């Protein structure tokens, strides 16, 4: 695997991340992993109907989140982006209420299946289940940013406004025509757009070589006039550097970037999937040894930024946060039946 962005050179943007920020990044990965694990446990206990997991993708997603203007830049995620949206500001309690489909669920009022993230307040756009539909829409969000710049409706230097649109998807979803059409607009109009492909080698059960004849998704980028970067998705700082580069390009008006993060889903596709039918245990175990959280733990420990006592504090805080979130979600009421009919149409602008 080639990482085009070095992480250990002094020029790397990640070299200037403060110890506090690095610890925040570690915490973001950890809380996402523990929330994800709890969801699997709740499913095994028969308490929730469905879970779709991002386990193994935390390095990619948290690295990406920290490289953009979180809560301001547009993010159009996909269903594996739990760590990404938590790092932006969705809470474990929000997610837990989604799992149970309870009243006041943060993204959809309990209408959507869990992990169909969305929160307007943080400029996280609601997604659907058919894959890659978000890509041309994210190009549309990026188009709107550029439109406002060109028509003097916003200032490109104003960081209180969205200055890029980030969308994510798996490598399998790049087989969709919608991905192509979105990438094409991003290239033609040189949009402030980042497409983060989280390449985990499988689209449910179908391996990459049955999705495309090229070895790397990033190879497709030049055909759209878009810059392509490949990065080790299990190395959070490498992802941060690649994404930082892509974000700065977008902010400068230099156009779109495709970032391909090579990673692995260490669990089945969803709670309805059994991955033993399509991949060996040895393969899964070999990727578990490259776990992004463990890797980052080693980096931070080596640099003297994290020690066992601090990690214990994080673990205790994670458990407490998730326990509280679960209690809240379990005891929350279901939405009343009347909510079936709400929010079909938007009311006129006041």
């Amino acid at each position, binding site marked *: 695997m080639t990482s085009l962005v070095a992480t250990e050179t002094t020029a790397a943007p990640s070299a200037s991340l403060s110890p506090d920020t690095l610890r925040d990044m570690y915490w973001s990965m950890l809380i996402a992993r523990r929330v994800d694990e709890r969801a699997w446990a709740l499913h095994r206990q028969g308490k929730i109907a469905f879970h779709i997991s991002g386990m193994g993708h935390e390095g990619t997603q948290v690295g990406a989140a920290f490289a953009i203007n979180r809560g301001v830049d547009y993010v159009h995620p996909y269903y594996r982006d739990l760590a990404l949206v938590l790092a932006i500001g969705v809470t474990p309690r929000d997610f837990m209420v989604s799992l149970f489909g309870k009243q006041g669920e943060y993204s*959809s009022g309990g209408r959507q299946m869990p992990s169909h993230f969305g929160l307007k307040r943080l400029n996280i756009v609601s997604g659907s289940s058919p894959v890659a*539909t978000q890509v041309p829409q994210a190009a549309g969000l990026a188009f709107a940013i550029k439109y406002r710049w060109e028509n003097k409706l916003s200032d490109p230097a104003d960081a209180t406004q969205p200055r890029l649109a980030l969308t994510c998807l798996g490598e399998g979803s790049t087989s969709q025509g919608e991905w192509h059409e979105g990438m094409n607009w991003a290239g033609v109009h040189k949009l402030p757009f980042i497409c983060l492909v989280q390449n985990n080698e499988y689209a449910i059960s179908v391996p990459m070589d049955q999705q495309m004849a090229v070895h790397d998704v990033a190879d497709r980028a030049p055909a759209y006039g878009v810059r392509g970067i490949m990065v080790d998705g299990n190395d959070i700082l490498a992802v941060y550097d690649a994404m930082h580069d892509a974000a700065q390009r977008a902010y400068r008006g230099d156009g779109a970037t495709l970032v391909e993060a090579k990673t692995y889903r260490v669990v089945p596709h969803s709670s309805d999937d059994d991955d033993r039918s399509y991949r060996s245990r040895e393969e899964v175990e070999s990727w578990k040894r490259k776990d992004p959280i463990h890797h980052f733990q080693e980096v931070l420990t080596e640099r003297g930024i994290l020690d066992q006592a601090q990690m214990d504090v994080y673990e205790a805080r994670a458990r407490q946060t998730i326990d509280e979130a679960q209690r809240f979600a379990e005891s929350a009421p279901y939405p009343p039946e009347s909510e079936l009919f709400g929010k079909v149409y938007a009311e006129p602008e006041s």
Partner: protein
Amino acid sequence: MPEITLIDGIREAMDEELARDPRVFITGEDVGVRGGVFRATQGLFEKYGAARIIDSPLAELSIVAIGIGAALADLRPVCEIQFADFIHPAFNQIVNEAAKMHYRSDGQWRVPLTIRAPYGGGVGGGLYHSQSVEAFFAHVPGLKVVIPSTPYDAKGLLKSAIRDQNPVLFFEAKKGYRSIKGEVPAGDYTVPIGPAAVRREGGDLTVYAYGIMAHYCMQAAELVSQQNGIECTVVDLRTLLPVDRETIVQTFKRTGKALIVHEDTLTMGYGAEVAAVIGEDAFEYMDAPIRRYGGADVPAVPFSHPLQEAFMPNPEKIADAIREVAAY
């Protein structure tokens, strides 16, 4: 008041909305320097420039999806699909995305998007430049579907569509672009999305139609009035979704007989919904079986002239259907 054509009304609406709101922009195939293949956007590129009148790549899905994304970012896109027949690649974006966004985000995200498309046959366009596609979309809660029949309505309804907070599909009868003329005031006014219009009143039966068929029905109503002394009420539905149940029911109750006409193929067409509304809400007023008259149930409108004309409803055929219903 100046008399202008249907397409002039459409162009005026876009021109005035572009001038009124800097968030309004137009995208679609050939909408820029070419001014659209039907000239709906003629002159707008010169007036508003390339930053607001944007020639899209030749890919309809992306025209709609870019519009959705821009609408999510609070712009007011007006997307042109060159022919309604070409809207099908964008079906997923319209039905799964635009229509469901407000509902699926519990009202957080809205899609104030207008999609314009010329529809309908009778112009030698063959299978893929003649289709009527309204029934697909009128089935989808979350969308609004509008089909104007007069220049006045075209201008006023398109302004309402552009200002609406929801995705609106705006279908334009291409055969009537230049043949339909009417008085339209210069300057701003709107026609609300929703209410149907009663174009003619008569006591013998009620005819329901929209788009160019509303004109054909008016012509047919004059024919049967002169030739047979049959007096029709003609209702121009104008908005297909939401359904104006009240006008449908009230106008039916006054005559007790109904003919529903559309150019779209008959089976599962919009007429079925109108018939069902009457059946549910005005059963006791019914003096005759409800009759639907639509395009032939074939895959699309053929190219060869006699085959095309055999497909198309026209005033004479509609007049025959009126006479049948009236005679019951």
